[in-house]
């Protein structure tokens, strides 16, 4: 796997971590909670090398 591809996976993991952190931190706004999870879907699928 080329180095640049590895860097992209690291960036994906970083954004996924940020989304999880924001999801945990969110206390009241239900729409935002759902939004964080929806945005996570393609990132999870990419990290698992599924899509």
């Amino acid at each position, binding site marked *: 796997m080329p180095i640049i591809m590895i860097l*992209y996976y690291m960036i994906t993991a970083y954004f996924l971590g940020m989304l999880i952190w924001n999801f945990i931190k969110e206390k009241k706004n239900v729409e935002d909670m759902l939004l964080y999870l929806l945005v996570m879907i393609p990132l999870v699928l990419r990290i698992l090398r*599924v899509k």
Partner: protein
Amino acid sequence: MSREWKIKSIFLVVITVVITISGLQFYKHRHYMVPIIAGPGVTKVTKLSDYSEGLKGTMADTNVFYLEGKEKGGKMLIIANTHSNEPAAILSSLIFLENAVVEKGTLIIIPQFNNSGGRNTRPGDGYPLYFEIPTDWGSKKFRIGNREASPLDQWPDPDVYVHYPDKQLLSFLDVRNTNRTWPGRANGPLMERVTFGAMHIMQEEKVDIAFDVHGAETMFPVTNCIVAPESAIRLATMASLTVKAMEGFENHVEPSPKGFRGLSHREIGDYSDTLPFLLEAPLPFLDQPTGPKTVDLLLNGKDPFLLSLSKQKKLFVPYDETGWPMKKRVGQHCSVMLEIMKQFSRKFPERAIKIKNVPRYAEVVKNGIGHYFHNPEKAEKGNIYYN
């Protein structure tokens, strides 16, 4: 448990279910293997990575089948699934692969050229994941792939694709399109390594004629045609006139534009001695103003919106209630390839190619495509190649 975590737990369960269901479908599609049965004419099977080392161990590597005749003659190459969402290509190449017997010369077939693209999906356009062709023994299942290679195999895309070696600026997506990356290079992006492998085959094997088999929208002018550069246009014209007169279907000739780089019909002719032909059959599934992208639309090509547009003369092909069934498209491809081969053999008798047992248009339309596919359960295990 607090109210906040009750809501979060419900959301987490729902999203996990969504990821699991979609993820499993995508994973199964990417790893689904199509059984390809080497017919009586196949004498050798190699990998494209034997000609382009940079493909070794990647999802872009693919099988190359050789059908060598007892008598020496010319050489012909069939490339299918350059765009894996244009399945008439793989279906017609498999008819050759599973049935052809070469009497003179050599036939080389790469049925899944953009192997990574064949494992890529297009959920945003609502593409189905698979289609099945009915056969005499059941049905044969194929993946519906995408026009471009999967980003899992080649990433990231550039802002603009700078074509090698002409430096023409192309769309960023075309860096993953194996009909824009010709002639390719050994150490370029993965798809350039794919086309480099095919160029290497043509140069090393001294291939005389090469076919790149496609499908195109009915609303696109370059459809139902043979695209050929200056060196090959006379043969294409002769074949076009002959199939119209003898077999009753239209397949006009389009000249390969000199200023549009990266396409097989341009670069193969410019960078080798091989005469290239790109074949297009109408593919209503690719048109934008259609109903849902269903398997039925892919196989039968019937769509009420296209019918309405046809009545307003907005299409570039004849279109009526019968649509454009797959067997017509595959039959056309088979006949056009056989006819170009025949015309070439007449013009260059010392490099003639003779192939038997491949059906022409009328036979494919009458018997159906599946009639020419062999049952993997009854085939010898050593003759089945899963990819």
